[in-house]
């Protein structure tokens, strides 16, 4: 029985709900953290996501083709909209990209990167800063695919796009990141 089908047993055994919780919490947290780049705010948003999920659990239905994961991420997107509405994170120029790197460095340092090599850390700073040069959709698909670890099918259910379209977007986004980083290296 898949984890999503645990939904139907959720209230006969509370452990089933926490199976889903344990499965999706890291992914939701990674997604929200990648979007907000602020740990405490991300924790608050994740808490709200799961409380909302619990409050509206009765309205969820597998029949519509949705998975529990896609449903959770939809709630997370909705919560993020409220938080990020006032923030504009699109970085248009290389200069703005370079100015973002220290901010990302500051952010990542809050995440306890002791076990990560310095060179690797710097690449991470650059990649996160380069993600701000992407469009919202490209950033979304990168975040869901690599940072949250979701499959193409789940991302398709979340973003309402075909997997082939997502693959093309992903490839384009990765190319943009590569170009941004290589240009700024020069």
């Amino acid at each position, binding site marked *: 029985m898949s984890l999503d089908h645990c939904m139907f047993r959720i209230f006969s055994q509370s452990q089933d709900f926490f199976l889903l919780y344990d499965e999706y919490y890291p*992914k939701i*947290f990674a997604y929200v953290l990648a979007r907000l780049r602020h740990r405490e705010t991300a924790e608050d948003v994740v808490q709200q996501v799961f*409380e909302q999920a619990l409050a509206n659990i009765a309205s969820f239905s597998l029949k519509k083709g949705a998975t529990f994961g896609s449903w959770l991420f939809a709630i997370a997107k909705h919560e993020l909209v409220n938080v990020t509405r006032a923030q504009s994170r699109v970085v248009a120029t290389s200069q703005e990209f370079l100015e973002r790197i220290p901010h990302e460095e500051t952010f990542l340092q809050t995440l306890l990167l002791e076990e990560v090599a310095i060179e690797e850390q710097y690449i991470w700073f650059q990649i996160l800063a380069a993600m701000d040069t992407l469009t919202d959709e490209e950033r979304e698909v990168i975040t869901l695919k690599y940072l949250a670890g979701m499959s193409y099918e789940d991302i398709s259910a979340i973003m309402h796009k075909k997997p082939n379209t997502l693959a093309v977007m992903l490839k384009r986004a990765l190319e943009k990141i590569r170009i941004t980083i290589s240009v700024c290296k020069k």
Partner: protein
Amino acid sequence: MQEIKDSLKNIGKHFQKTQDNHQELLRQKLSARVDAYRVLVRSFSWSSFAAWSVGGCAMLFLAFQVHYRYQEYALYTEGVVYDAEPAVFEEYALAPSYEIDAYALSEADVAADVIMRTSPSSNVSKNTGAIIDYEEEHGSMIEEQVNIALLTREDQAASTIAELFTSLGGHLSSLQQSDTYASLSGSIPLSRLSFFYDQLDALVKNDAFIEKNIRGQSITSQVLDVSARMDVLVAAQAEIAAQLQVATTDEQKTSLRERLDALSQDMDTLVKEQQTLEDRVAYVEVSLSVAQLPSLWEAHNDVDLRYIVAGYDEPNIWQRIQLHIFSVLFVGVEVMSTAFWILIPLLVLVWRYMKRRKMFRDLA
């Protein structure tokens, strides 16, 4: 490109790992709320639904079985009999004072009883002595009318009885029929009346109710009256014939012949009257009312089970116990069915609502 992908994956893994404390704290917070929602939302269980449906159907089946037995007996009771009575037995009210419940009486007993209880009704002859003398010599002249009422399950009872009239050499004079009631009247030869009764008994067999009411009326005085009038006419005819023999003028002869013709017509009338009287004795007027037992699901109020369970007699002690059990069981099953399908789900809904309110109050 692959480096970027790997880096992104590593970033994602690191993001996912750096929240252990918060994950546990949030889990504890959510645990309390999960209990609250457990009351609110239930997963659909096919086994529960199947058990509920099968149980409900079983209860209804049991209720119908008891109700069926109750109604099956009740249909024979005063509820049905009394419902049919106004139409079927209304002739009781019209029966003359000498009516007899003659189901077990033979025809001879009926006739004898009638003779003893009936006063001569003819206003032509008052000679009771002559009547008795005539009856001693020729036997009693009884005109019989029989009223029979049937309650039966047979669908074709009315048409079968109608055929019986003609097959026995009688005559069916009227037949009125509806879905559940039929009224027949006609005449049956007196010699075939016993056979007619036997055929009726065979027709309705076990589960029917037969009432017979036989009326008899002596018409001996009318027979004597007609006979006496015939004698007078015969004597008059003889006298006129004798006068005709000695008539001299044509006018006298013509007048006497006219009187003879008139006498012949009167005599023909009397002969017909005699024949009619003979037929009235030789044939019995039979009126039948056939009421079909209504559907088992037709409601009856004020039924009395005594007559049915006891087979139209007062019930014995065992039958009284059965009646009591039927009544209690019938009411009990109706109550249980109502409780099973309506009250119990209602109580469960109310309980869940109260518990949910308490949970939210405690959480707040």
